[in-house]
């Protein structure tokens, strides 16, 4: 299934910038960055649990927020894209 992960990390202090970097690193490991703090990840339910637990261990619940949207398996009809930034679709043939 395709999962959209977005986050807002409070970066008023140095601790916050550190959290931001760490969170983005975890997300990059599991999906593609479609916008600055927006990631599309093709995950199995088990992998989603892993990602979540990794993110929870980094985030500070009092200052940051995390939103996860489940777009299911037929996500293609649910996404429209306009403008710059090329993305790949994870289930199409991948030839570089």
């Amino acid at each position, binding site marked *: 299934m395709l999962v959209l992960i977005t986050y807002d990390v409070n970066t008023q202090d140095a601790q916050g910038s550190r959290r931001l970097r760490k969170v983005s*690193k975890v997300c*990059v*490991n*599991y*999906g*593609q960055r479609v916008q600055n703090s927006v990631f599309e*990840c*093709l*995950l*199995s339910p088990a*992998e989603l649990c892993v990602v979540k637990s990794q993110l929870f261990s980094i985030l500070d619940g009092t200052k940051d927020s995390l939103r996860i949207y489940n777009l299911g398996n037929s996500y293609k009809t649910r996404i429209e894209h306009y403008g710059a930034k090329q993305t*790949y679709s*994870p*289930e*199409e*043939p*991948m*030839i*570089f």
Partner: protein
Amino acid sequence: MKKLLNTLYVTTENAYLALDGENVVIQCEGETLGRLPIHMIDGIMAFGYIGASPALMGKCAEMNKSLVFLKPSGRFLAKVTGKSYGNILLRRSQYRICDHEEQSLAIARNIISAKLANSNAVLSRAMRDHALRIDTEKFARIGEALQKGKVNAYHAQSAESLRGLEGECANLYFSVFDDMILQQKEDFSYRGRSRRPPMDYVNAMLSFSYSLLTSMCVSALESVGLDAYAGVFHTERPGRCSLALDILEEFRAPFADRFVLTAINKKSICGKDFVEKENGGILLTEDGRKKFLTLWQQKKKEELMHPFLQEKVEWGLLPYVQAMLLAKYIRGDLDEYPPFIWR
């Protein structure tokens, strides 16, 4: 059931593959062409010259993803293997079977009779779909011979007689292969099998698809813990993955041959997609290879009903399913190895 994951093909000849965190990064002349999480993919096939970083090779081995290097022509060069996995008891029983003529024959018989049944099915499919454009009488005659070959193969008494039967039937089957090419006749005509190098467009496509299919079979066998190099029918030679070639026989006609025929008949690939080398060998051009791989990847995602499992599986998972069934038979969980018979 295992999920069919995507395969990453790298056809840019001077691309370098690196690992960054859990991402495969494809670089070319200082630029990043792509960045993909390694979880998403089942394996990487690299057709370039420059290669991959040791860190990526290590990661692939650790995560059990196949990393295969091929020549731009599609010829196999090397493959990264990590620790051998699966269990030694299964592999030992596999070796015992390979050493035992009678027991190897029991598997080989099933595989070859399935191969002949599948070749026959390809012919009957052509007869059904293009009854007006092909010589149905000739097809029916050869189909009958294949049918008989199938039954004989199932009762073959020795590996030699099985080999003879297989060769005979393959000749018959390929004698009408050209008749199944209905479009673009001026570019695509089949006069006989030629390899190393393939001498015409059809052979170039056949060779390429067999080579892709072989690596699929190798990784399928290894992922269930079998040794792809110890075969039951193909003679063993250093560096030759005999068992993979054995199970490949089941898929050749319904998977690879039909794939090639469809690509030609639907005009998805045309004469412009090939180049001729100095030695007369024919290769796909870079664009042609991309087209070919895109189609191949689409074919892998098509679903069919598996006749033995009675479950829907993708074509791309078939080698894995058969490897699993073979492992089950070797373990003694099944009375007979159920080969893949396409209907």
